[in-house]
């Protein structure tokens, strides 16, 4: 006969305001097997836990139901407390009175009744619980960081400085991400490259960091501490060990008119190229789509020029499989393109550009060497209009959220423009100015007060071209919606920050969740912001939501701390929620008939074949056996097995049917 204790928590007002906890505790006393039932304001508090532990000893309890919040919040707390009081931790279960009852129902008799019912179900489960023991699995102390922007670089450096190996996977030919394209950065206006390139070099030279640029993750198997990641190293068409980065090939490549991604289409590059002068690694790649040799079968000028014979036209992509203990996603974001705006001419006007294009125009390493020239005719723009919230906070564009960085970089852009064209006029159309950050509001004030940028609160409804000018038609909502018309030479749209193309695909490869906009989802919006729901996979930077550099770097260090914490143990303790194939005495041995349908169903290849031998050494039968180190406890095999030979510890048939019978 079970001796079960029920502990009902008010969770302050969270449960207490809707559920009559005193009555629930009273009702639970009548459940068969329950020998003790009390309620308390905060069960998770120290006195709450102590009360439970004392009751376990005093009433010789062999099972516990804590009726409180979601087991996702406090299951570890109460299991640990129960364990400390001398019973097996897995004899403790939680009934979720908060998320499943008080938060979703009105106060009343029926709600209190439901709360008691939920407890009744869990009491039945506990009656069928078995003591379980945690499983130890080894940890591979090598981390993989996916994405080599400022976020990924920071994660890699922090983990590497913590003494662990890191593989940094970047899909483009160089690390650096968006930050390497920026001219100067808010709120200090320091040169972006000057603060980023030392970090890039440090990452490249760090003995604990292996860079895999021009590479993408193709497949991820395994689980926390024991991932197997397959990376596709795309063919650079070049032997990286031989290449010295002298750049002769680039100088001589005849194909010079290719639109340059790094300069956002405002400049050109060759078919063999490094994306920018400070690229890390400083090794070119051949763009096979545009290379004359791949198009016509003739050219090979680069091969002839290369002093070290490093060019390899026949090089193929290479697949590499690595053992990895933890993964950090830092794949960043993309900007909405100007062609998404019919009202602003679908991106047809060369002088309507996006924020990143402006960064390139303002950058000393950009196509104009930092001199303000508008793209259409190279003239210095005398009037420039900046439009914040272009696409952001706009349901019709599918982006209801705030992109967070545009208010700040728009102020920066207007300021940079005024510093370069002193006589110029800068106008900013905005909805609200969101400048909540250290020294942020002061920065915007500086743009308005010192650099005399004219801020107009209102939207721009239309832009069209007339006599070489862009006619910007807007409204000033602070002047009662009065129409404003500005004849501009150039317009900069602060377009929305969006999740990267194919981010959903990557999420699916890694089995992490993502939100409806394709940003990766954190495990808890407040308390676990750098973890995903998948153990061992973490997040940093703008792949999770729009972020600026300070936030990205802070989050990156947070994710690195998590990884270093994980790697501080040689072994991981895992929940013993694993499947078991039953074993019985000879001559039956098991109800498993050896069909191995379960083997095909298991997503983790955890099911092995065990040969049962007679004393003579002869194989009598082959049965399924589950490797507890590999099993993740999904239970798919349990539902697949036709003879019900498999059961899942913690969610056994007995437990689940006992719960069902009490519903």
């Amino acid at each position: 006969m079970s001796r079960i204790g029920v502990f009902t928590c008010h969770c302050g007002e969270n449960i207490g305001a809707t559920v009559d906890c005193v009555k629930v505790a009273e009702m639970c006393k009548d459940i068969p097997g329950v020998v003790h039932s009390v309620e308390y304001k905060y069960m998770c508090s120290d006195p709450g836990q102590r009360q439970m532990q004392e009751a376990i000893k005093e009433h010789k309890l062999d099972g516990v139901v804590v009726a409180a919040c979601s087991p996702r919040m406090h299951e570890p707390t109460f299991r640990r407390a129960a364990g400390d009081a001398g019973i097996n931790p897995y004899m403790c279960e939680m009934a979720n009175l908060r998320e499943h009852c008080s938060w979703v129902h009105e106060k009343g008799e029926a709600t209190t009744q439901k709360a008691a019912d939920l407890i009744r179900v869990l009491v039945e489960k506990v009656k069928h619980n078995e003591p379980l023991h945690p499983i130890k699995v080894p940890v591979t102390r090598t981390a993989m960081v996916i994405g080599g922007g400022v976020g990924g670089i920071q994660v890699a450096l922090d983990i590497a400085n913590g003494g662990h190996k890191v593989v940094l996977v970047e899909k483009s030919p160089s690390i650096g991400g968006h930050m390497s394209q920026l001219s100067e950065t808010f709120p200090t206006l320091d040169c972006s490259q000057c603060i980023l390139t030392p970090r890039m070099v440090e990452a490249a030279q760090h003995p604990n960091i292996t860079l895999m640029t021009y590479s993408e993750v193709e497949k991820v198997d395994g689980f926390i501490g024991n991932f197997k990641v397959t990376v596709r190293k795309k063919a650079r068409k070049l032997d990286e060990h031989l290449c010295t980065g002298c750049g002769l090939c680039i100088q001589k490549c005849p194909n010079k008119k290719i639109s340059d991604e790094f300069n956002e289409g405002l400049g050109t590059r060759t078919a063999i190229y490094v994306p920018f002068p400070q690229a890390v690694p400083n090794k070119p790649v051949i763009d096979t789509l545009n290379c004359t040799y791949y198009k016509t079968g003739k050219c090979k000028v680069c091969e002839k020029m290369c002093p070290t014979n490093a060019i390899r036209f026949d090089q193929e992509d290479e697949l590499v499989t690595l053992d990895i203990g933890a993964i950090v996603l830092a794949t960043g974001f993309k900007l909405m393109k100007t062609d998404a705006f019919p009202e602003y001419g679908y991106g047809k006007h060369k002088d309507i550009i996006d924020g990143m294009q402006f960064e390139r125009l303002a950058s000393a390493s950009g196509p104009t060497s930092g001199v303000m020239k508008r793209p259409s005719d190279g003239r210095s723009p005398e009037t420039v209009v900046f439009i914040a919230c272009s696409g952001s906070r706009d349901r019709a564009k599918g982006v209801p959220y705030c992109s967070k960085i545009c208010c700040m970089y728009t102020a920066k852009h207007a300021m940079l423009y005024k510093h370069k064209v002193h006589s110029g006029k800068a106008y900013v159309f905005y909805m609200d100015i969101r400048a909540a950050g250290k020294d942020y509001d002061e920065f915007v004030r500086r743009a308005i007060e010192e650099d005399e940028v004219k801020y107009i609160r209102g939207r721009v409804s239309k832009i069209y071209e007339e006599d070489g000018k862009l006619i910007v038609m807007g409204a000033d909502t602070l002047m009662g919606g009065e129409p404003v018309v500005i004849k501009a030479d150039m317009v900069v749209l602060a377009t929305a920050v969006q999740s990267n193309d194919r981010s959903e695909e990557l999420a699916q490869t890694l089995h992490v969740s993502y939100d409806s906009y394709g940003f990766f989802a954190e495990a808890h919006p407040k308390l676990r912001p750098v973890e995903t729901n998948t153990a061992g996979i973490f997040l940093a930077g703008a792949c999770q939501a729009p972020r600026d550099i300070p936030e990205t770097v802070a989050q990156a260090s947070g994710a690195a701390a998590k990884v270093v914490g994980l790697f501080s143990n040689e072994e991981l303790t895992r929940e013993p929620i694993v499947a078991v194939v039953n074993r019985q005495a000879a001559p039956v041995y098991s109800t498993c008939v050896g069909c191995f349908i379960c083997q095909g169903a298991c997503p983790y290849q955890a099911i092995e074949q065990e040969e049962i031998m007679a004393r003579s050494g002869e194989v009598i039968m082959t049965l399924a056996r589950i490797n507890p180190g590999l099993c993740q406890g999904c239970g798919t095999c349990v539902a697949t097995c036709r003879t019900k030979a498999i059961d899942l510890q913690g969610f056994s048939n007995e437990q689940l049917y006992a719960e069902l019978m009490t519903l």
Partner: protein
Amino acid sequence: MRVLRVPCTGRIDYMMVLKALHKGADGVIVSGCHPNDCHYTSGNYHARRRWMVFKKMMEVMGVDMRRITFSWVSAAEGARWAQLVNEVTDQVRALGPYTEFRQVIGAGIE
């Protein structure tokens, strides 16, 4: 509405659904991660395959399939989950208690 916690839709033996209807539930929702982003890699594919067979069989047996809803809702879709639960509870309420099941079919599955 009562929630029975399982690790993965892959763990669900559809016998459980029948048992729930038999024990007095008037409708059942089976829900878990979307195909392709199963928390356990691919358990939900097996759940889906079994569901297709189960559904056909139930239709043949004359079980009212408005009583059983299969729906993908991820852990990041709180609002979608709330909407689903409201829709299904409204529908099941409109249908009323599922006594036929318990009279006719339920007798067989003790």
